[in-house]
């Protein structure tokens, strides 16, 4: 049995999915957090069913790649029941999608989520009455607290077993007769969704479905155009608007019958935007919030790094002295310890506070406010404010950031933002910036690198835009309401990413560190170093750092952890000058995206884009690092 979660962006589908599936999907108070579908097996009343979390979509019009996924999935896969999640505070808008889904010819359960939010706004919703009116089960739910989740799944299982297909709502005469006629004329071909749904999609002018129907029923296109012409002629409006207006009429009537507006208990939360989006104070708050975020990472990380590093250094000395043997073995042991300490002392102290802070800002709903404030700036780079979504995610990890470019409508914007996003220092590169630069040169130097990075990205975007001018339609984004994050969702989110680091990246770091110890012992590294010598020479770095740079392409953290191996000490301050540390870090921040990022670029945007972006990143890395040397030459 397969159940699918469908709902509009930011209605809490992924929160619900995580409640039943364990933490497997990214969530956030941010429209468009889920951009592709996730499938998992869950147990409902002792029976294993397959559950799919689909990206949020306002309608089944499929106006961007993420939304298209939903319609394609409905058409391609056999779904036994749809669990339609809607936001109780946006009932009319949510019901529009419900009405559309009811046409698909699949059993459907309606879960009205965020009931707590609605009651705070004084909204009373009569779910039972809605259930009677629509003829489908309707259940109240508070997904973030796990309320109503079990009942929803029990009902979904029941209607899937009974194969209870809902009766779709009727449109006004003109549209209804056009739909009926199209349904009848489509003689040929089996369709996985109901014929009524196909007919409606034809009126809405869905290009894909029109092509498919025409392929199976030649001549159909003339009949469709005939209907579209008649409809437009009668009302001087496009058919897609007429259908949408009709649904809106039905949804409004339903909402009127089932809701009562009581006294609202809204507080300062709703006045918050008067300050946070204020033309002057808004930007001051933005700077203060980001500075606080930075201070949090630096404060916690720096406080933990030094004692942890000291502990592992002592441990290394102790073991090497105790063993008192020459040869490969002590080298490998030192390599192992350095791999372990790299993860524990250098990466985790910065990664955990970073993820906590980002998770908090995201769940509270502040990230979309940043998009609003930064849209004008993004335009100067040739992108619109929506690109801020991948940009911010990029500070966590480039892989989901590049996937999130799917929320953009056109390909040019997707490629340009992917190219710029790979240059944003992700959490892995964050550990290089903090572990090396801020640890030895202080927090201001690290902050300087972040500003320099933004500047270089802006200039690069500007130059690219000069050659490929902007033709994107501009920003279209829903502003979510502020929500108080629950400890549970934030910690779950942090754990989701930390677990990934511990089980996937850390073993690789240790393995890389051991490999390097072996390579060092057999003096193989010098040949690898020669490969990167042109670059290390240009950057004024010792040739021994070539190997860490090569390994850094696998995991960016390796470029710091293996640096200890390559230089023979964890006290980088003793062997590298400040200038070398800066130019090394800047090079690491920009050069070649890691393997995982390259793969995701290839999957999302094609081979050509991947190589273009990789080449570009190398070029930018060299120029940026040389520029930093120039600054040192003149000012230090």
């Amino acid at each position, binding site marked *: 049995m397969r159940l699918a979660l469908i709902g509009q962006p930011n209605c809490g589908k992924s929160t619900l999915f995580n409640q039943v599936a364990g933490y497997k999907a990214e969530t956030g108070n941010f429209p468009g957090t889920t951009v592709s579908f996730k499938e998992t097996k869950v147990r409902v009343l002792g029976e294993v069913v397959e559950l799919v979390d689909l990206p949020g979509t*306002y309608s089944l019009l499929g106006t961007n790649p993420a939304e298209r996924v939903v319609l394609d999935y409905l058409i391609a896969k056999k779904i036994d029941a749809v669990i339609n999640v809607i936001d109780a505070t946006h009932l009319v808008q949510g019901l529009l999608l419900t009405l559309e889904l009811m046409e698909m010819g699949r059993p459907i359960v309606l879960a009205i989520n965020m009931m707590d939010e609605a009651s705070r706004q004084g909204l009373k919703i009569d779910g039972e009455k809605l259930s009677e009116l629509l003829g489908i089960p309707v259940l109240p739910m508070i997904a973030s607290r796990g309320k109503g989740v079990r009942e929803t799944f029990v009902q979904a299982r029941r209607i899937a077993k009974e194969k209870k297909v809902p009766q779709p709502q009727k449109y006004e005469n003109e549209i209804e007769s056009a739909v009926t006629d199209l349904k009848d004329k489509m003689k040929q071909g089996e369709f996985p969704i109901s014929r009524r749904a196909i007919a409606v999609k034809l009126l809405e002018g869905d290009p894909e479905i029109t092509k498919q129907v025409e392929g199976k029923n030649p001549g159909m296109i003339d009949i469709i155009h005939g209907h579209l012409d008649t409809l437009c002629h009668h009302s001087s409006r496009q058919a897609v608007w007429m259908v949408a207006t009709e649904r809106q009429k039905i949804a409004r009537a339903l909402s009127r019958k089932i809701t009562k507006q009581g006294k609202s208990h809204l507080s300062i939360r709703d006045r918050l935007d008067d300050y946070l*989006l204020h033309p002057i104070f808004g930007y001051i708050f933005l700077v203060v919030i980001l500075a606080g975020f930075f201070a949090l990472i630096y404060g916690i990380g720096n406080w933990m790094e030094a004692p942890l590093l000291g502990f592992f250094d002592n441990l290394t000395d102790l073991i090497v002295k105790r063993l008192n043997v020459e040869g490969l073995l002590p080298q490998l042991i030192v390599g192992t310890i350095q791999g372990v300490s790299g993860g524990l002392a250098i990466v985790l102290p910065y990664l955990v506070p970073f993820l906590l802070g980002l998770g908090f800002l995201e769940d509270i709903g502040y990230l979309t406010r940043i998009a609003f404030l930064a849209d004008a700036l993004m335009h100067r780079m040739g992108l619109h*404010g929506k690109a801020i979504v991948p940009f911010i995610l990029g500070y966590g990890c480039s892989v989901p950031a590049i996937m999130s470019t799917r929320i953009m409508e056109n390909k040019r914007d997707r490629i340009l933002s992917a190219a710029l996003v790979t240059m944003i220092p992700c959490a892995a590169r964050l550990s290089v910036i903090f572990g090396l630069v801020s640890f030895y040169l202080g927090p201001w130097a690290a902050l300087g690198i972040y500003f320099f990075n933004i500047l270089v990205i802006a200039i690069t975007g500007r130059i690219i835009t000069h050659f490929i001018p902007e033709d994107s339609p501009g920003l279209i984004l829903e502003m979510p309401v502020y929500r108080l994050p629950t400890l549970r969702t934030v910690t779950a989110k942090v754990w989701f990413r930390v677990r990934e680091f511990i089980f996937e990246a850390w073993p690789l770091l240790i393995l890389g560190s051991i490999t390097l110890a072996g390579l060092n012992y057999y003096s193989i590294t010098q040949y690898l170093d020669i490969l990167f010598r042109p670059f290390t020479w240009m950057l004024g770095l010792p040739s021994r750092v070539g190997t860490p740079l090569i390994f850094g392409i696998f995991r960016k953290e390796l470029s710091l952890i293996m640096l200890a191996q390559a230089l023979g000490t964890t006290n980088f301050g003793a062997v590298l000058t400040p200038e070398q540390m800066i130019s090394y870090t800047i090079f690491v921040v920009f050069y070649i995206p890691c393997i995982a990022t390259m793969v995701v670029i290839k999957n999302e945007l094609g081979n050509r884009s991947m190589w273009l972006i990789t080449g570009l990143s190398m070029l930018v890395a060299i120029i940026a690092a040389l520029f930093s040397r120039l600054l040192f030459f003149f000012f230090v």
Partner: protein
Amino acid sequence: MNLLNVKNGKWVRVTNFRGGRGMQRRLAQLGFLPGNKVRVIRAAPFHGPLLLEVEGREIVLGRGVASHIIVEYI
């Protein structure tokens, strides 16, 4: 008159659209349909986007998009 000409805090009614099919579909599904009411909540500085209230939701539209929506005062 398009949305860019509307003063902050004022309610207007959508009458028509300019621009391509894809854009119209996108705006339609967010509640920008002929006859629906829209309020300009605020505009971001530096020629930034508009924050709008439509059908009980807050939507951010870039100036390019907003200029495609033709409206009239109520």
